[in-house]
C-alpha cells in the first residue's frame, strides 16, 4: 500500500487523541508521510470523537473519504463509519464488539479480546487503546521493536503495563496486509498550532497573551508549557479586551507580543486593533476561524472571517493579513507577520482555522524559506525624539521606555508628530497620509515574498483558487486532474501584481472555500478578476480529496 487511511474512533475522553499521535508516529517512523485529521465535538467526555490518519509516500495535507483500517473502540464508531470502509478495508476491534455489531459478511474483520486483556492486567479502560494499537501494528506487519520504541517515547510511568497490553494485542493479531516501508527519513510530526508557535518564536516573540478559545487554545497551552525553554512571558487575563490591551502595553514597552483568539474574542479586540492602527503600536493576532455566526460550531472549521479580518476596526489603517496553507507556511509567515508588524508598526493578523491548527503532519523546517529578521526602525538619538515623525515611507523611528533623552507619547486620538492630540484639519490629513503611506512600501517589500503561490504548469488553463487550509487538498487533487492551483497567502495588502501574474493564461477559475458566500472570490473581484465558479463547503468539515474531486469534475466537465 502506497497510500492508506486509518480511522480510530471512540468516546470523547477515552484516549483517542493520544492513540492518534501514536499511530501517526508509528507510520512516520516507518518512513511514511502522515496527515492527521481530528474530529471532536464541543464537550469533554462521552460524545463521539475520531481521527483519520492518512499515510502516503509523499507529503500530504488532506484526507480521503475511504478508510482502509477502521479501529473502533466502541459500537458507535462502527455504526457511524462502516460505510466509509474501502473495498478491501479492514475492521479491528474487540472481539465481543464484533459479535454485537453483526457486520456484513464480506467485511474483513479482526477481533481481539481487548476488554478481556485490559481487565486481566487490572489496567484502566483507557489502555484499550494500547491493545488496539498493538493489534493494528501486527496487522500491517510492523515489527514489535518499533512499536515498543514508540510506546516508550509516548508513555511515562505507566509504560510497563502499556507494553504488556500492547504485546497481548500484537500477539492476538494477524498480519492482514503487510505494508511496504518507504525508504525515507522520518520528519517531525507537528500540528499547525505548533508550527505557528515555532514561527512566532523564530520571529522573536517575547510575550504571548491569550484568553482560551478554540481553535487557538492549543497555542496558549503550548506557549505556557514551553515558556521556560523559549524565555517567554505567557499571560491569560480576564477577557479578550484585557488580552489585546495588555499586549499593546507590552509592545509599547518594546516587547514583541502576540495574541491568539477566534471570532467572538476577535470581536472584542477590534476596538484595540483600531487603536494599534492609530497609535502605531504593533500587534500580532492569531485569528483561528471556526463556523459562525456567533458561537456556531466551536470545534469545527471554517473560512468565514476573511472579510472581517480585512475590515475590522473603525477607520482606515494599514494591516497585514496572511493565511498560511500548511505547516511550513504557518511557520514562515508567522515569523514574517511578527517582523512586518514591527517594521511597519501595524497590526498583523495570522488568519488560520481549526483544520490548519489541529491538523497534524510532517514538518520540514528546511523547506520553509528563509526568514529575514528585520529590526524595527529605531531612533538613533541624534535628533529630538518625535514619536510620529513624518517620513518618506511613513515609518517613524521607534524608541522604548525608559529612554533618557526621549519622551515617548503614543495616542489613539489623532495627534501631531509628538503624539499630542490635534483637531486641526491639515495636521489630521498629514498624519493620516503618513500612516497610510506605509502600505505602499509594504506592498513594495512584499514583492520579494511568496505572496501568491501557484502549483501546476503554465500550460494549464483551468485553476483552482484556494486559500488557507484548503491548500493541501487542492494541490493534491490538481496534480491528479492536471489543473493549476492559485493560492494567495497575503490577503492584505492584496498582492495584486503577483496575483495577476499567477492568473496568466487561466481561462477558468474555480474558487474552493470553506464558507457560504465565497469571500475570496468576492475579494479578487475588486481587482478585476472574475471567478467563474465556486465550490463552497460550510458544514465545518474539511473537503476530502474524493469529495472535492467529484465537485471539481462537475465544474470542469
Amino acid at each position, binding site marked *: 500500500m502506497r497510500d492508506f487511511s486509518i480511522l480510530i474512533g471512540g468516546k470523547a475522553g477515552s484516549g483517542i487523541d493520544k492513540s492518534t499521535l501514536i499511530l501517526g508516529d508509528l507510520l*512516520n517512523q516507518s518512513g511514511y508521510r502522515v496527515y492527521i485529521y481530528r474530529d471532536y465535538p464541543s464537550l469533554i467526555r462521552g460524545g463521539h470523537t475520531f481521527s483519520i490518519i492518512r499515510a502516503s509516500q509523499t507529503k500530504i495535507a488532506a484526507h480521503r473519504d475511504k478508510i482502509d483500517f477502521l479501529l473502533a473502540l466502541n459500537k458507535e464508531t462502527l455504526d457511524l463509519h462502516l460505510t466509509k470502509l474501502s473495498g478491501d478495508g479492514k475492521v479491528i476491534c474487540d472481539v465481543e464488539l464484533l459479535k454485537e455489531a453483526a457486520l456484513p459478511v464480506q467485511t474483513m474483520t479482526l477481533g481481539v479480546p481487548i476488554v478481556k486483556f485490559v481487565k486481566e492486567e487490572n489496567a484502566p479502560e483507557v489502555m484499550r487503546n494500547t491493545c488496539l494499537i498493538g493489534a493494528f501494528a501486527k496487522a500491517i506487519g510492523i515489527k514489535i521493536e518499533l512499536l515498543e520504541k514508540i510506546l516508550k517515547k509516548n508513555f511515562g510511568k505507566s509504560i510497563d503495563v502499556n507494553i504488556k497490553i500492547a504485546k497481548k494485542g500484537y500477539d492476538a493479531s494477524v498480519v492482514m496486509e503487510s505494508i511496504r516501508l518507504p525508504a525515507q527519513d*522520518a520528519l*517531525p*510530526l*507537528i500540528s499547525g498550532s*505548533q508550527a505557528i508557535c*515555532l514561527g512566532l*518564536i*523564530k520571529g*522573536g516573540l*517575547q*510575550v504571548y*497573551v491569550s484568553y482560551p478559545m478554540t481553535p487557538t487554545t492549543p497555542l496558549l497551552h503550548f506557549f505556557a508549557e*514551553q*515558556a*521556560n*525553554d*523559549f*524565555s*517567554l*512571558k505567557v*499571560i491569560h*487575563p*480576564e477577557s479578550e*479586551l*484585557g488580552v489585546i*490591551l*495588555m*499586549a*499593546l*502595553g*507590552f*509592545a*509599547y*514597552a*518594546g516587547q514583541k*507580543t502576540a495574541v491568539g483568539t477566534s471570532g467572538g474574542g476577535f470581536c472584542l479586540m477590534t*476596538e484595540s486593533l483600531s*487603536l494599534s492602527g492609530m*497609535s502605531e*503600536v504593533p500587534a500580532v493576532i492569531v485569528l483561528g476561524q471556526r463556523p459562525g455566526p456567533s458561537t456556531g460550531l466551536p470545534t469545527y472549521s471554517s473560512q468565514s472571517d476573511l472579510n472581517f479580518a480585512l475590515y475590522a476596526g473603525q477607520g482606515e489603517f494599514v494591516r497585514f493579513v496572511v493565511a498560511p496553507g500548511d505547516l511550513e507556511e504557518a511557520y514562515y509567515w508567522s515569523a514574517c507577520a511578527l517582523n512586518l508588524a514591527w517594521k511597519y508598526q501595524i497590526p498583523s493578523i495570522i488568519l488560520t482555522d481549526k483544520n490548519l491548527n489541529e491538523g497534524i503532519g510532517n*514538518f520540514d*523546517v528546511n523547506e520553509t524559506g528563509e526568514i529575514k529578521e528585520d529590526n524595527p526602525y529605531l531612533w538613533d538619538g541624534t535628533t529630538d525624539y518625535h514619536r510620529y515623525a513624518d517620513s518618506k515611507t511613513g515609518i517613524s523611528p521607534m524608541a522604548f*521606555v*525608559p*529612554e533618557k533623552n*526621549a*519622551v*515617548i*507619547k*503614543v*495616542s*489613539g*486620538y489623532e*495627534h*501631531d508628530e*509628538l*503624539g*499630542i*492630540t490635534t483637531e486641526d484639519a491639515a495636521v489630521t490629513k498629514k498624519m493620516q497620509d503618513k500612516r497610510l503611506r506605509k502600505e505602499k512600501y509594504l506592498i513594495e517589500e512584499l514583492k520579494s515574498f511568496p505572496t501568491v503561490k501557484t502549483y501546476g504548469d503554465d500550460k494549464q488553463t483551468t485553476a483552482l483558487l484556494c486559500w488557507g487550509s484548503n491548500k493541501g487538498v487542492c494541490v493534491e487533487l490538481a496534480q491528479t486532474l492536471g489543473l493549476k492551483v492559485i493560492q494567495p497567502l497575503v490577503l492584505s495588502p492584496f498582492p495584486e501584481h503577483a496575483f495577476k501574474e499567477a492568473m496568466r493564461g487561466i481561462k477558468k477559475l474555480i474558487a474552493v472555500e470553506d464558507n457560504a458566500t465565497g469571500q475570496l472570490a468576492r475579494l479578487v473581484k475588486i481587482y478585476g478578476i472574475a471567478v467563474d465558479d465556486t465550490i463552497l463547503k460550510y458544514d465545518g468539515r474539511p473537503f476530502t480529496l474524493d469529495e472535492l474531486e467529484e465537485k471539481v469534475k462537475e465544474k470542469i466537465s
Partner: protein
Amino acid sequence: MSQNNLNTSAPNTWCPGCGNFAILNGIKKVLNELSEEVCPLEKFVLVSGIGCHGKIVDYVNVNSFYSIHGRSVPVAEGIKMANSGLKVICFAGDGDAYGEGLEHLIFAAKRNVDITVIIHNNRLYSLTAFQYSPTSPLGFKGRSTPNGTIEPPLNPLELMLASQATYLARGSSLKLDLLMRLFREAIMHKGFALVDVLQVCVTFNNLYEYYSKHVYELENHDPGNFQAAFNAIREWDYNSDARIPLGVFYQKEAPTFEDKMMSFPADIESKDSKIKEFLSKRM
C-alpha cells in the same frame, strides 16, 4: 526642586476652575520631586482613558499612552509586566474605570500589579456633555436620565477592597497638599494602588461647596486594619449626605504579580537550536 515645568505644546482645554487642574498640578509636582529623589523621569509612564480626565497626558511632558475609553488599566498592566522597573500611573475617569472598564480594575487589584490608578471622579460623564456615571447619586438628572437615575451609585472603594487592592485612598481636588501626599504614597506603594479623587466638575456638577462642607481628613485611622478600612470606606456611600472621609483607607504589603512572574533569561541566541531540539522530539 527641579525647574522642569513638564509642559508640552498642547493648549489646555479644560474649563476654567475645573478640578482636573489640581490633579495636573499635583502630579507634576510629585513627578518632579520623585524624579529628583527616587526614580528618573524617563521611567515614568502615564496612561489614560478617554474623557476630560484623559487629556492630562497631553499636558505632562512624560512618556504616555493615551488609550481608549475604559481600557487604560490593562495597558498599564502590560507596560509594568514588560518592565517592572517602570513606574506606571493610570489616569481614569469614573465613567471610564468604574463603568466601561470596571472589570479591568478589579482584576488588576486582584493580581496586585504594581501600578497606580488615579480616578478623576467627577461623578458624571463630562466630555460627552453630562450623563450620570456609576458614582452619581440616586436621582441624578443627567441628559440620559432627565427624570433622575433610578439606580444607586457604586461605592468604588468598597468594591476595590473586596478586589484585594493593597492601597486605597480618597483625595479631593479641593485639597492639593493631601492630594500630593496621596499621589506620592500611591506611586511609592509596591502593589496596586488606587486614589479616588473627588474632582469637581465646575460646569456640570459643581460640588465645590458641598464637598467643602462634607469632607474631613481621616485621623487616628489604622490603614493596616482591614475592618477599620471597611468601616471608614462605608462611612460615605457616594449617595447619602454623610461626612466624607479623605486620606488613606487601606494599605497592605503583599507580593506583586510581576515579582511572582517567572522570568526566564532571554536567551535569544539559542532560539534556533531550541526550535530544532523541540522538533527532534517530534520525529
